[in-house]
């Protein structure tokens, strides 16, 4: 079952998602990290912090920047996919990404993870309430993220927005 978790920057989304995985009762916990850090110190630091926090939670971590359907999911497993905006950016901007046809491939990958696991928690980001409007690539990116989010919301068992650490039920 799909559980979508959204919220602003540093709003406590990841912590909430981790707590939900722990509460799911599944024997195995798989963390799917979509960020390809490269050498950017800010990204590396972010990844280090997340790893540090997860280290005693019994997660197995898999890095997957593109093909979710290549992931092996164990039996009796809760999957935490973090995060959707990154996955879309990878598909659109990495050299081996699928570009503007990202919607189909991402939905297919998520469908696979959903069917292969017992619970699937997907962390996304609220990027839609901004003070300026965007053109070109960024606009297309936001449109696709909006479409994927709406598709997932219609499939999801639950959708939760985390506001400064407080879960607010959307669906």
């Amino acid at each position, binding site marked *: 079952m799909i559980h979508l978790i959204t*919220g*602003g920057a*540093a709003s*406590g989304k990841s912590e909430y998602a981790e707590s939900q995985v722990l509460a799911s009762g599944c024997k195995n916990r798989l963390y799917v990290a979509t960020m390809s850090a490269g050498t950017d110190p800010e990204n590396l630091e972010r990844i280090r912090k997340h790893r540090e926090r997860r280290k005693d939670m019994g997660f197995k971590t898999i890095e997957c920047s593109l093909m979710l359907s290549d992931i092996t999911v164990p039996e009796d497993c809760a999957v935490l996919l973090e995060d959707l905006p990154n996955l879309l950016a990878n598909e659109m901007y990495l050299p081996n990404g699928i570009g503007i046809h990202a919607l189909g491939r991402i939905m297919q990958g998520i469908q696979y993870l959903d069917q292969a696991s017992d619970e699937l928690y997907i962390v996304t980001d609220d990027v*839609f309430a901004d003070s300026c409007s965007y053109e070109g690539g960024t606009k297309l990116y936001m449109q696709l993220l909006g479409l994927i989010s709406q598709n997932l919301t219609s499939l999801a068992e639950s959708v939760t927005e985390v*506001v400064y*650490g407080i879960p607010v039920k959307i669906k």
Partner: protein
Amino acid sequence: MKMVVGGAYEGKTDYARWQFGLSEGDIADGLECTQRELLNCKCVKHAEELVRRTLKRGGDPMQLAENMIRFNPDMIVIANEVGCGIVPVNSEERAFREAAGRFCTRLASFSDEVHRVVYGQGMIIKKEQRT
């Protein structure tokens, strides 16, 4: 402590005045208030600007949050949610969003009530008995 959060220009301050019976003089402004005003006021608005000012002078916003909790635990904190939008290109602006998010999350965890205001309408997203 109580918090009122929401986007800019959503009517948070008017809502707080009505909800908590505040007068104009009860409300300090995070854009310009002194530390003394902050730690003695009934209410502060633009709390996210406290974070910006603290970062600018090389201070630690989390330490500021702890000081507010310790020395003005009954205050009402009004804060703009600033983390919703495309990640800014400017690294200082990114750092500000992160710090403001963590700062508000800390205050919200201490608060016994958190109200979220959308277009002037408040929704209580957290309410618990003081322990």
